């Protein structure tokens, strides 16, 4: 469905994507997780043919997406940069969108439009940020594109609308399975929807695994610093918080049950690490944590 091989994108000297490779399968919901400026938006724009990769190979529906009419007709990128002509009302925008997208479901669009109580005569430019996001989301859902991409879709939405959005997305996905990518920097509010997670950092892919695996990716160990140190050796640590001789450490879960039993015997508490935390630990900068900033004093 989507395959990227060593994709690099540079803008005037800054590298947004750095030899990124990934494969996204058909009819899955994939979460694209990364911090600001990790290259999420760049990747999505390359996939929908808005911009062109500097090097590497990109294929969407076995075609090179840039400037490709077929890819454009079968994909949609919903983000807060969507610009609609301001002399045209919201209702007319829905009608026009219907002209362009063959799979467009006007019935769904109108029911969502009504549910979120939009004024048919309103102008897109006059909407608040959250309302814009909601309207864009309606376009994204109703267009029923085989590749539907949401880039930070919930910006500005309130909690209720956010929930409604994820619920609507899921229901429509179940009824009409398609390939969906949602990018966000917070995973927790949508992790139940996702089948796969693609974590990127500084333009490179870090992880691309099923969501359920991500939940078991790491474990947290809590106990005496000395015991933990001895037991872990020089195994890389995801995060570490210490208070005198007591520490909490998160590490990649490469242990079998027996090893975990052993460490429990030594008075170490073993706890799972949530997917959101895993992503946070994985994508944080190399300069240590925020703790290190304060340690200097």
């Amino acid at each position, binding site marked *: 469905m989507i395959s990227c091989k060593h994709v690099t994108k540079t803008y005037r000297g800054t590298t947004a994507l750095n030899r990124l490779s990934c494969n996204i399968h058909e009819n899955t919901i994939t979460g694209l997780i990364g911090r600001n400026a990790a290259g999420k938006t760049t990747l999505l724009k390359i996939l929908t043919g808005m911009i062109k990769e500097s090097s590497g190979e990109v294929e969407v529906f076995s075609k090179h997406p840039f400037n490709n009419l077929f890819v454009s007709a079968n994909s949609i990128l919903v983000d807060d940069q969507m610009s609609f002509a301001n002399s045209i009302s919201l209702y007319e925008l829905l009608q026009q969108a219907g002209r362009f997208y063959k799979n467009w479901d006007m019935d769904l669009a109108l029911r969502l439009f009504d549910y979120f109580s939009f004024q048919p005569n309103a102008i897109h430019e006059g909407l608040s940020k959250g309302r814009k996001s909601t309207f864009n989301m309606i376009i994204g859902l109703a267009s029923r594109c085989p590749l539907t991409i949401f880039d930070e879709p919930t910006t500005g939405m309130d909690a209720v609308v956010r929930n409604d959005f*994820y619920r609507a997305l899921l229901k429509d996905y179940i009824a009409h399975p398609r390939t969906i990518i949602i990018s966000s920097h917070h995973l927790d509010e949508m992790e139940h929807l996702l089948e796969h997670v693609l974590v990127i950092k500084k333009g490179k892919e870090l992880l691309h695994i099923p969501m*359920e695996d991500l939940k078991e990716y790491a474990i947290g160990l809590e106990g005496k610093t000395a015991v933990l140190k001895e037991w872990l050796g020089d195994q890389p640590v995801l995060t570490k918080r210490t208070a005198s001789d007591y520490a909490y450490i998160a590490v990649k879960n490469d242990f079998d049950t027996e090893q975990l039993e052993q460490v429990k015997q030594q008075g170490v508490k073993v*706890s799972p690490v949530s997917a959101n935390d895993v992503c946070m630990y994985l994508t944080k900068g190399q300069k240590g944590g925020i703790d290190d900033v304060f340690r200097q004093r």
Partner: protein
Amino acid sequence: MLDLNGVTPIYIQIAEWMENQILNGTFQIDEKVHSQYTLAEMFNINPATAAKGLHLLSEEEILYTKRGLGKFVSPLAKTIIMEKRKSQTLTGLITDLVLEAKQLQVEDDELLEMIRKEMKQQKGEEI
């Protein structure tokens, strides 16, 4: 229902929910259970995750598959579930209990006494 943002993988929660439904008789033997899509809608989760939960139950032979029709409760479902819970859940709880007792320096006899006392109390309440 489910703890979506919790640390327990959702597919395991789905499997446990389904087991509970079988135990309390919502699904009878040889009755068709919910499809992955129904479950996904009910619990607001990805269908693939729901499928994984169902698959787990199939592997444990709690459910069986009729091709093209869906998944059904196997005749031995209740027994299997109870056996599994005994061997896994109960054992895990006991391990934790023993560990905790050790940390609190509770003697073995004292611990056993506490268990007996608790059991008596519960039985008493039942009567």
